[in-house]
């Protein structure tokens, strides 16, 4: 697998898509800063997590997400064969033929995820109550 230096450029497009969606959600939530973004990346999503980290950091500069951490959760690719009812880890490169009966009726159970799971806002409306002790000055 490549390191951060190898640019497979669609990771930049993906990073920009993540940032766009988080910005929209932040606006809706009234958040002013983002602590972290949690992303599921399936083994067969065609995305290199290291490259994505590299692009994400670059693309966050100057946005609401500046300094935000990108947490990627790898998702193993698994398939199931209907006739055999067997389930297997397809591996990389993937083997999508049933290892038992060899048929092509496999069903992919997981591995294509490219999904924003959750976001941690760093501030926003919930911060105000913390400062409340200052009401001394009332």
């Amino acid at each position: 697998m490549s390191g951060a230096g190898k640019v497979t450029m669609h990771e930049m497009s993906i990073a920009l898509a993540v940032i766009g969606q988080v910005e929209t959600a932040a606006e809706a939530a009234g958040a002013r800063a983002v602590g972290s973004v949690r992303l599921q990346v399936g083994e067969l999503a065609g995305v290199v997590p290291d490259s994505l980290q590299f692009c994400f950091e670059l693309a966050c500069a100057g946005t609401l997400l500046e300094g935000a951490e990108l947490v990627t959760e790898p998702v193993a690719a698994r398939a199931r064969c209907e006739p055999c009812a067997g389930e297997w880890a397809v591996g990389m490169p993937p083997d999508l033929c049933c290892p038992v009966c060899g048929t092509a009726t496999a069903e992919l159970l997981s591995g294509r995820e490219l999904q924003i799971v959750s976001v941690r806002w760093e501030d926003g409306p919930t911060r105000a109550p913390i400062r409340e002790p200052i009401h001394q000055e009332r």
Partner: protein
Amino acid sequence: MCRVVDLQQAVLAKNDQCAHDLRAALAARGTIVVNLLSSPGSGKTALLEQELLLARERGIPVAALTADLATENDALRLARSGVPVKQVLTDGLCHLEAGMLGGHLDGWLPQDTRLLFVENVGNLVCPASYDLGETLRVALASVTEGEDKPLKYPTAFGLANLVVVTKTDIAAAVGFDEAAFRRNVQQVNPGVGVLLTSARDGAGAGALLEAALDAANGAPLHAPVMARPQPHTHPEAGHDGGHHHSQDHSHSPSHSHASAVPQHLA
């Protein structure tokens, strides 16, 4: 103080929606898109030039859009077939996206077009993730590229509705092991069809055109395992949008529309 909120959004949701809308808009006017993916130098342009010429001779209304980082060379070659051709320069971008394609079709694509061939940027990594609103996705490899190409680029070959081998006229000279190639294709995309072609000696001429016409006429297409929607198999995640989704759950089902190939193909 901080808040954690579940978003559960597919990263490529916007592109997928765009692709879905484009496919519907094109279908309404009787056009389908054929998305051609391969490495640089695999012979996409030569094969396409031949297929476009055949289409023209048979009176089938086709058009082609070709994407490259730079130069209009491919469009000039394809235009020799006499069908409408458009060159898109991606200005460094390694792939096409559905919104970009839609924008390029506006005001250019002739109304009666039956088949629009899109020659994606020569690259087997990035374009694989982007649904362009195509009905037929084709992954190509030349005999010189090594039999293990499908294993090295499993997403590109795994999501294809059809695989095309090019330059078969030199297969013997380069020691192409067809059986091994087919085995590797079947490993990542069980059941997918493989066409053997040579633009130089005419082997397999018209086969891609036929496959595209079949797709346009609604013939059932091969549905790659990788492109089929993933089932929701984990009861603990439920069907509530994943809001109680546990973060250490390593292979929970997603609620994404992550497949690059449209669901109606699956």
